[in-house]
């Protein structure tokens, strides 16, 4: 579903990251491990179409991601790539349901309304009209997962999704990500240094930086 070919990326003044070629098929999950500063998040941004690499290519379902430009890339990302961030980053002026519906709106796929479906799948149906500031951390993270899933993407990227959660919630979040990705047949990539996740997902790679 997603594959990378000899990506290179470097920030100014810092040696280039070593990013191995990787491939995740639909329904598979991959854990990306590494110390902080090893380029985990940078890799996730590159895979998510948020940050263009210096060199190399990212293929999503056979399509070269960065051959798309501007609005086309934005719409493609909205439709095909779901991203879960370390913090939920839910838009406070909107309700839970409106937050989850937002990807539908931005990628113009409102006809295919999956909001209620994912509220149910993630067990937050009772929070549908809740205000954002009344949610607990775990609930907020589930809302952000629902938002990442609502367009039924081909790829799900998660950046330290469990970092700020307790054991119980961390386990639930990883389980949800795994099961939903499997249901959608989507490729799941989780960037983390959280030991609790390692037991849940077998496949992993570890990133290193030359000088670290």
């Amino acid at each position, binding site marked *: 579903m997603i594959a990378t070919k000899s990506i290179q990326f470097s920030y100014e003044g810092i040696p280039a990251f070593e990013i191995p070629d990787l491939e995740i098929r639909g329904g598979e999950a991959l854990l990306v491990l590494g110390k902080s500063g090893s380029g985990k998040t940078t890799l996730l941004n590159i895979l998510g179409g948020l940050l263009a690499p210096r060199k190399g290519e990212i293929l999503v379902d056979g399509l070269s991601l960065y051959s798309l430009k501007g609005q086309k890339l934005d719409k493609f990302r909205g439709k095909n790539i779901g991203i879960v961030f370390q913090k939920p*980053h839910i838009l406070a002026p909107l309700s839970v349901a*409106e937050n989850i519906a937002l990807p539908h709106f*931005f990628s113009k796929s409102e006809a295919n309304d999956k909001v209620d479906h994912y509220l149910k799948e993630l067990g937050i149906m009772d929070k549908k009209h809740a205000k954002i500031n009344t949610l607990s951390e775990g609930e907020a993270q589930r809302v952000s997962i629902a938002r990442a899933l609502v367009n039924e993407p081909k790829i799900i990227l998660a*950046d330290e999704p469990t970092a700020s959660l307790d054991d119980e919630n961390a386990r639930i979040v990883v389980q949800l990500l795994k099961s939903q990705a499997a249901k959608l047949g989507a490729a799941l990539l989780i960037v983390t240094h959280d030991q609790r996740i390692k037991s849940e997902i077998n496949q992993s790679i570890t990133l290193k930086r030359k000088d670290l």
Partner: protein
Amino acid sequence: MSMLKLSWKYLLAKPWNTTLNILLLALGLSIITVLILIQDQFENKMNRDAAGIDLVIGAKGSPLQLVLSSVYHIDFPTGNIPLDEARGISRNRLIKNTIPLGLGDNYQGFRIVGTNHDYLDLYEVTFAAGEAWNKAFDVVLGSRVAQKSGFEVGDVFVGSHGIEAASHEHDEHPYRVVGILAPSDKIVDQLILTSIESVWYAHDEEHDHGKMEEEVAKTGFPEVVADEERELTTLLVQYRNPIAAVQLPRLVNSRSALQAASPSFEISRLFELLGVGISLVQGLALIIVLIAGLGIFIALYNSLKERKYDLAVMRAIGASREQLFVLIILEGVLLTFLGAVTGLLIGHFFLYILVMTNEQGALSGLSAGVFLTQEWWILAYALGVGILASLIPAWNAYRTDIANQLTK
């Protein structure tokens, strides 16, 4: 969800900030609205009321006061002039017609104007009920007077001396309503019209009841016995030809007791004097609007700092740069649109209050329900301010660096 709704939700998330900005803008725009409404209607009304009157002749004093008192019935009369002199002037070949006015009494603040039927023709009045006066102490009420007093044809009332309410009453000579005028949006709406004779007889010490039953003069001057020294307040003059405009005022002013004043000249002088004040207030209103614009700019700019994450998240879930740009511009436009609409409403409401509390003054007869084309310009101006104020914040939103923002 739509872009408009999304913008609106973000404005609602900061209700106090939003309200403050809307009110500040509304304040500035409402001042401009009131000024525009008053200026337009006031000038219109002033010109309408002076139509057909080329010159006013009265006692010496301020020419502006003479015009205000005898054409618009707002200031005090300058004094009276002898009937003989008035009659003498009116025979001048430069004059086409004169209408004599005898002022000085009122009924509850509505001025009683002694005149002849030519005055009715001058303002092209139509009667809602009854007919014009025939005898002394017969009166015709303007539509507002009738509405306020509740009088109908056949009713009787007592006038008071002076042009303001609650002075000494002429209780020996009640007036009888014989006619009521249809609303005309002119000064006659607020006047009580009667014959010159009525005004004279009301002030006479002796009462000759036989005289009061005679028919009064319908045009020109009333006939008087030679030894009576009757007076008028003013003469409204129509020129026979354009030369009169040059010669007649000079001729009249050279006579010791009389003064001539041109309504159009005096009124344009008045507007010139008022114009300075109006420009000042207008300038102040414009500055308030600019400050409101600045307020909107600062509010958007600051809220953008807090919202960088939100904007980055929107990009991550499929929003394009252009959509974020539009989102912020819409917020500015929404704010100013609401401010403009509120401002226009407040402006009209303010004028309504002003007119209501000023029923017999200079602003009476103005309408708060009039919508002028200039008000569309106010709206356009406000939206322009909104777009201008949101341009820089919108550009910042357009340039949001998603990857950097989300991983901070």
